[in-house]
């Protein structure tokens, strides 16, 4: 379980996050939703420790995030960032194998390499194995990076998985494929999944819980099926009700 307590974060006097309280349950997928610039990615970075909040704390299993060593964290938590450009011609397989870095001493190279292969197959990227990563398309790169992230927590139950817009570059088939996979892993391995996303239909169908944030404040939290409806959408996204209905009316509960 992840608990965020009173997270405050500002850059140059401008408040990005204000008094965020949130919990993320194991075995559940929790979405962080909201308009552009609402502070979604910033919140995710505070939860992973990439950013240090001005105030407040994050607890993993009741223990403060800052009391974990980098090594301990790397074995229980994986993070897929929004964009991770790589300028060097590593193969897809080499990139995924880097996800096994925490285990480079206690597992053999052959074992780590095999897990990288399995992870590639799982995200439907096995055929890209020996291609040079920088030459792959955006969506292909995203899938390979996702494979790296799941390779990192491959043998671990109850791990934490943070995904920042994991489907932004994917085609429809691979969006569903990836989210199905996340759902399956989440149930089977009781992962705690935190996912920042923009597609509200996908969030409605594929996540268990969600938080809406806007201008750095949490504006609502709860079960995705109850919370994601056109009234909330029109309010959070400043969208005229008829647009909200047009975009989401067919999909969402009234």
């Amino acid at each position, binding site marked *: 379980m992840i608990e965020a307590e009173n997270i405050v974060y500002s850059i140059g006097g401008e408040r990005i996050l204000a008094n965020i309280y949130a919990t993320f349950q194991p075995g559940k997928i929790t979405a962080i939703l909201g308009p552009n610039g609402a502070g979604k990615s910033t919140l995710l970075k505070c939860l992973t420790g990439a950013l240090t909040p001005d105030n407040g704390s994050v607890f993993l299993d009741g223990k403060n995030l800052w009391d974990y060593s980098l090594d301990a964290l*790397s*074995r229980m938590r994986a993070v897929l960032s929004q964009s991770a450009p790589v300028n060097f011609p590593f193969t897809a397989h080499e990139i995924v194998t880097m996800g096994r870095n925490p285990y480079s001493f206690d597992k053999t190279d052959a074992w780590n390499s095999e897990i990288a292969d399995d992870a590639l197959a799982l995200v439907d990227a*096995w055929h890209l194995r020996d291609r040079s990563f920088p030459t792959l398309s955006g969506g292909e790169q995203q899938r390979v990076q996702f494979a790296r992230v799941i390779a990192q927590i491959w043998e671990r139950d109850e791990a934490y998985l943070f995904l920042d817009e994991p489907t932004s570059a994917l085609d429809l088939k691979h969006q569903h494929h990836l989210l199905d996979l996340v759902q399956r892993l989440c149930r089977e391995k009781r992962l705690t999944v935190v996912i920042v996303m923009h597609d509200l239909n996908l969030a409605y169908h594929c996540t268990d819980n969600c938080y809406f944030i806007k201008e750095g404040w949490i504006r609502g939290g709860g079960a995705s099926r109850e919370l994601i409806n056109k009234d909330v959408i029109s309010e959070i996204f400043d969208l005229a009700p008829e647009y909200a209905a047009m975009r989401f009316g067919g999909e969402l509960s009234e």
Partner: protein
Amino acid sequence: MTAASKTIAIPFTRRRMKLPALLLLVLILAAASLVAMSIGAVPIPLGKIISVGLSEQQAAVLSSIRLPRVLLAIVVGAALAVSGAAMQGLFRNPLADPGLIGIATSAALAVAIVIVLAGPVTGYVGLYGMSVAAFIGALASCFAIFRLAKVTGSFSGTYMLLTGIAINALSAAGVGFLTFLSDDQQLRSLTFWTMGSLGGALWISVVVVTSIVVPAGIIMIRNARELNVLLLGENEARYLGVDAERLKRRIVICTALSVGAAISVSGIIGFVGLVVPHLIRLTLGPDHRLLMPASALLGAILLLAADTAARTIVAPAEMPVGVLTSLIGGPFFLWLLVRQYSGRPGL
């Protein structure tokens, strides 16, 4: 799910090439050393070196002139190439090179300050003093580039090269000013540093440089796996258990030490740090575990070849080897730029 599409594992060819590739490079280096030892004003036939059948004069030339020079070329070439590879990893940019981004010039500036203000330096104290000065100069410019990159959060090639140009210009201005101040003797030393030459090779310089470059090189190669992970990005590296700050600090210090030591005995020898890792990456891939040792060997081979050429093509005069490497490296760099930037406008 789609695991069925996974067939027989394709052998990981790059890794299999690791040992043969390194062995081949060692053999070429050994051959190049023998050739370099035999060529020169006093010809020493290869057969005689191997069978130890040298005349007294030949033995003296070999032990007090050629051997230290060959060893110095090997150590300096290896130091520049490994530092180049490490720096490219550190900046996550394949265009980083100690010469291009102003590190070498800053080191030269520090050395120039020592020459002009402290007078002629000789012996171990002087050489180590010069190495320390060059190290501080190199470190200062590394630090400046990092700080400037951090302000904008940009490690892009363009930004870094432009920063490098500015630092280069500043350091060059400093060297120019010191040249203006210096007397004849100092002027000669300064010209020597800025053009780069291994002509001053002595056993003592071999000892000093080796004692700095070898430990620094070993530390860098030992961090190769973590350097690979750093290429994913600093946050990504941290998520994967790599202490990015500590790794960066370690690499910066080791490259500054190596480059500083190399420059203090040879002056500025450009492009070795850029060209060599590129050639290795093109043939053996970007994995630092192979890239760094292979770069060390190829850097040694290339600088040895360049130095041998520099002292023979215009014999009995000698061409500064730095001029030669820049003559070859400049066009190579342009080709690289064109190759990397063509069709990729946003880079």
